[in-house]
């Protein structure tokens, strides 16, 4: 039902144009408290993040609130404390809450106290499957679930993607600054790395209009065929949350307000009303909705071999392989230059050091030169980690 809007939008884009727009600097009179997180009713960790809003023009986006005291309270006065593990992040481990009780979150900041409404525990049914469909221009990933009790109806998902990246060139040597050595390929390889990213869009779906509580082929993400994610091996961990009807409206409203504006057929921005309120100033806006429940998750792996030929990432044309000699005599000169020191050994004068890739040695002789390239073409740890994640298989 939204699609026609998208296409009108596209048509408008075609006849018109979309440009970056920076309105005159707007400064908010206040900053407001932002509360994000789910109280995990199972054995997993409960993570609540506290921050303050910042001005639109501000360079920082995250303004964490530290030193607050957070507790989860049941409607029968049981109290569970959270502790701040890093600035603005508050955690509690394995709360194992009673499914039949209602819970709320209490936040005491330096100056004020906030309370969420009491919310019921909504445990997510398991994810039936996460699957993918190959299209001519990329890959669609879907999730499926159902609730045999027809109770859940409202769902939210987020995900964590992890994929293998490769450097353009596989380096067998490294410089310690003074000299070039062979690389220890088991612990220090920089050709294969893993990189991760978390979801940044709100994914919602509901079976409220369906005869049974079934979610089929719920779109999680679309990966274009040209994406590096698919160049070797890709994995996605999909987490599924069950929501109350009220929480679903909150997320939907947040999505509408921050992801779906633009076409004039879209609803006008409106206030986002969460379930957290200041005890001293009830009209103060507080952003966020606290839900309580367990989380279901599922992970899949997609190897490049499972995909059509399109999934091969073209080489980065800016990556070039240079050759540096220990003794290079430029034309018209008789004094040889040590190019290896000049370009590779960073303690010996290489201002923009390159990383050696392979050695060039006449048969039976030590290397007389190395091929090398810029770090971004050789060192994958600049974009990820070369330690294989524990879940990887």
């Amino acid at each position, binding site marked *: *039902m939204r*699609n*026609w809007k998208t*296409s*009108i939008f*596209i*048509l*408008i*884009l*075609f*006849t*018109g*144009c*979309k*440009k*970056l*727009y*920076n309105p005159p600097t*707007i400064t*908010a009179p206040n900053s*407001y408290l*932002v509360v*994000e997180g789910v109280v995990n009713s199972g054995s997993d960790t409960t993570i609540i993040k506290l*921050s*303050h*809003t*910042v*001005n*639109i023009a*501000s360079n920082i*986006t*995250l303004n964490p609130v530290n030193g607050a005291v957070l507790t989860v309270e049941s409607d029968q006065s049981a109290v569970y404390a959270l502790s701040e593990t890093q600035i603005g992040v508050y955690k509690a481990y394995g709360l194992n809450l009673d499914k039949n009780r209602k819970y709320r979150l209490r936040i005491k900041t330096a100056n004020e106290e906030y309370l969420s409404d009491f919310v019921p525990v909504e445990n997510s049914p398991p994810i039936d499957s996460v699957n993918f469909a190959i299209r001519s*221009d990329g890959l669609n990933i879907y999730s499926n679930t159902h609730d045999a009790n027809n109770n859940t109806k409202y769902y939210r998902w*987020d995900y964590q993607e992890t994929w293998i990246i490769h450097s353009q060139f596989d380096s067998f040597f490294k410089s310690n600054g003074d000299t070039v050595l062979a690389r220890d390929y088991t612990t220090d390889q920089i050709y294969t790395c893993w990189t991760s990213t*978390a*979801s*940044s*869009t*709100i994914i919602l779906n509901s079976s409220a*209009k*369906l*005869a049974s509580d079934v979610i089929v082929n719920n779109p999680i993400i679309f990966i274009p065929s040209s994406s590096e994610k698919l160049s070797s091996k890709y994995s996605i961990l999909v987490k599924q949350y069950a929501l109350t009807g009220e929480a679903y409206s909150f997320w*939907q*409203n*947040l999505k509408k307000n*921050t992801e779906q*504006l633009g076409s*004039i*057929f*879209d*609803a*006008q*921005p*409106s*206030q*986002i*009303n969460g379930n957290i309120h200041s005890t001293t100033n009830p009209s103060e*806006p507080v*952003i*966020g909705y606290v839900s309580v429940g367990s989380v279901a998750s599922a992970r899949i792996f997609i190897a490049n071999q499972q995909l059509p030929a399109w999934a091969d990432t073209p080489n980065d044309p800016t990556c070039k392989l240079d050759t540096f000699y220990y003794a290079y005599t430029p034309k018209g000169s008789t004094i040889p230059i040590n190019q290896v020191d000049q370009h590779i050994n960073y303690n010996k004068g290489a201002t923009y050091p390159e990383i050696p890739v392979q050695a060039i040695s006449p048969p039976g002789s030590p290397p007389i030169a190395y091929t090398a390239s810029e770090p971004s073409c050789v060192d994958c740890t600049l974009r990820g980690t070369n330690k294989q994640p524990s879940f990887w298989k």
Partner: protein
Amino acid sequence: MRKTYLISLCFLFFLQTALAQQKNIKLISCNFQQATIAQFAADLESKSSAHFYYDPTQFDSLRVTLQITEQPLESILYAAFKNTNYHYAITSSQQVFITKGRQIKTDLAPGFITIATASNTQTSAVADYTDDKDKNVPDATTENKLYEIGTRTNTIKPGNATLSGYVRDIKSGEAVVGASIYVANTKTGVATDQFGYFTITLPRGRHTLNVRGLGMRDTRRQTVLYNDGKLIIEMQEQVNSLKEVKISADKVANVRSVELGVTRLDIKNIKQIPTAFGETDVLKVILTLPGVTSVGEATTGFNVRGGSADENLILLNGATIYNPAHFFGFFAAFNPDIVKDIELYKSSIPEKFGGRLSSVLEVTNREGNKKIFTGSAGIGLLTSRINVEGPIIKDKTSFIFGARTTYSNWLLNLLPDAYKHSSASFYDVNLDISHQINDKNNIYLSSYISNDKFKLNSDTTYSYSNKSVSLKWKHNYSTKLFSLISGGFDRYQYDINSTANPVNGYDLAFNINQSNFKADFTYYLNNKHTIDFGLNSILYNINPGTFEPLGAQSLVLPQVVAPEQALESALYLGDKYDVSTNFSISAGVRFNIYNYLGPQTVDNYAPNLPREPGNVLDSTAFSKGHIINTYAAPDIRLSARYLLNDNLSVKAGYNTLHQYIHLLSNSTSISPTDVYKLSDPNIKPESGDQVSLGLFQNAKQNTIEMSVEVYYKRLRNYLDYKSGAVLLLNQHIEQDVINTKGKAYGAEFLLKKTAGKLNGWISYTYSRTFLKQDDPNAGELINEGNWYPANYDKPHSFNFTGNYRFTHRYSVSLDVAYSTGRPITLPIAKYEYAGSERVFYSDRNAYRIPDYFRSDFSINIEGNHRVHQKTHNSWTVGVYNLTGRQNAYSTFFTEQSGVISGYKLSIFASPIPFINYNIRF
């Protein structure tokens, strides 16, 4: 033109010949070239038994050039002396007296011998134009002929008589709507109605009627009014003045009419305004008028004096059109080849209209040509159209047919690959038939259908359609009373379906049906009072939404929002009273009765608590036809005019209005999936009132019109929506809406030049519109219950629309528009949430998008003007948005890859050239 003149003369002769032949009068042929009176008389004496008597000295300057075959003597004399100061008289013994200046009576005056009450005796050979001999109502085509109205009497009785009749186009026989008939010596005037009918009460005696019509040549008729009678005035089209801008048919109407805030535009004006894609658009043109704004280009709705887009009643030949746009607002759904004119009422809304708060836009189609078959075709970049019209029974019955379709798919094929399989199509078809049963009865059948279908990427199909049919019967009881009785059926529907995901395959449908009955009466009591009265009734039947599974695998649970029914009726009475020649009042009352009807289940809410699920006490089920509740209220319509002098008047008006049908829309612009909702026990009718004051002046023989109007308007129970409101398939919509108050005020300045090589208009409007939501029971307050500007609040608005005619074949048009940017709600703070930067919004509509400016240019090239050729063609070439300014259509802040960015979306952001080819046959 001279030829037409001759043709009409011949037509007259034909009539007279026919009469003469019945009396077995000898027929004569003659051929005079610059003949003197002596030659003329001698020749005719030789061919007939007549004897001529005349004074040669009076005829020394007369030369007769005439060629006639087989005509009676009288016709020859008539033709020879017509339009001259010479008169003839024929006695029964074939004596012919030719005189200069005065006519000789060949009979004794009545009462000369007997003192009889012979006032009704026919005393002249001149045809009788009275009501009793309807079939012989002459077509008055000549300006210098003296028409005698009513039974001729020797002495003209004191007192008044009523003259009525029709003004028609001499070529097509079509009614000339809004033609003004102005009598200089009594300073009275009337305008013809939608059927070209007029009635004027004048003192008995000799009058010159000055007749002016839109796109017609000015003409006059000399009459002697003896008694009540009829006159048909045929006007000639103003062939010479192609593309002349005229706002109103009635050049004096600006100053003299009692109404304020009423604008009529002829299709010719509309056609010369450049539009994107070159498609003539009857809706875009009204945006150039003062007091009319829209939220952006290519939007369906328009806003009149601070009213929302659903507060405009859009009528096509009397049928309500709910969605007047094709392709989500890119094109108007009215075929410009069929439309005759449009009339917009912003302030003085006649009593016969009601049911909407802001304005009435009346789109009137042409009547088919009653004399010959003609047609036209047009080819544009995106659409083509054709129209055919002609007589079914000559001079009695005619039809007009128009159709339009698009081939815009080529545009979609230029879109990125993802949209390759999209398609869009629309069409509209009009068929109107008019039939004259006799002089007192006319019937009109109008039908219209428009359809839009849009398919995205082979999955979601979206379609919407307007349909209407109506039958009107016009009956004249007398020259003073006539009625227009009509019945019709209008429907608007949309349907969205998708099988992209078989499990979620759905079909969503909405429709609104209304059956109308209208009886409108006009009674010309005397020359001081014109009384309108009547009865309107609309039966609504709305299916607010059905959501059903589509496809065998679909698990969608059927969901139906219960249909709604209501009856909206109104009785009205209005009187236009000319208190004196300078002071006129129009006063009326329209009494509205609205019944919300069963079957329906209505929730009852606890009093003085927000309408929320928790506050539902119980619900009541009503059976079919049961009146669930009734709203009744009078609308008052008042306006007055005082003439300060011949060219300057001051006018004032006050009106109240009620609206019982609401468009539920929380987007900036009307979206095609918006639904209509009827007032019910939980949703009160909207109401509003407006007071306006204006100063009107004409200059330079009424070719320059100036006006200044100010208004203040209040709105009550205007619907706004709670945050996150769901409007579609909502079983309890009253829980998501909140009542809002509105106020709007403004000043409108308009300067028009209606004649000459350069013509057009300039308008400037200062206007503000504010809304306020302070209902303590609403549950939440928008902007803490303070006044906030409405989406379409654009304080400054300037428009120039002009046309310059170099020759009769070439003219250029320029259109310039400027307005303050509309209000928007901007983000004022940002934060991270759910893996992305997100924004926190300001108070509603606290900021504005950049100002809007656009200029368009077009050149109109007419083919040659030879009258006799098989086809006439014309070209329009132009550029839309000449300066290529990237006007903000909307601005928005959205997350992409976890970062919030502001974007400005512009449409038609570069100069868009267009070309249109039109052919008439």
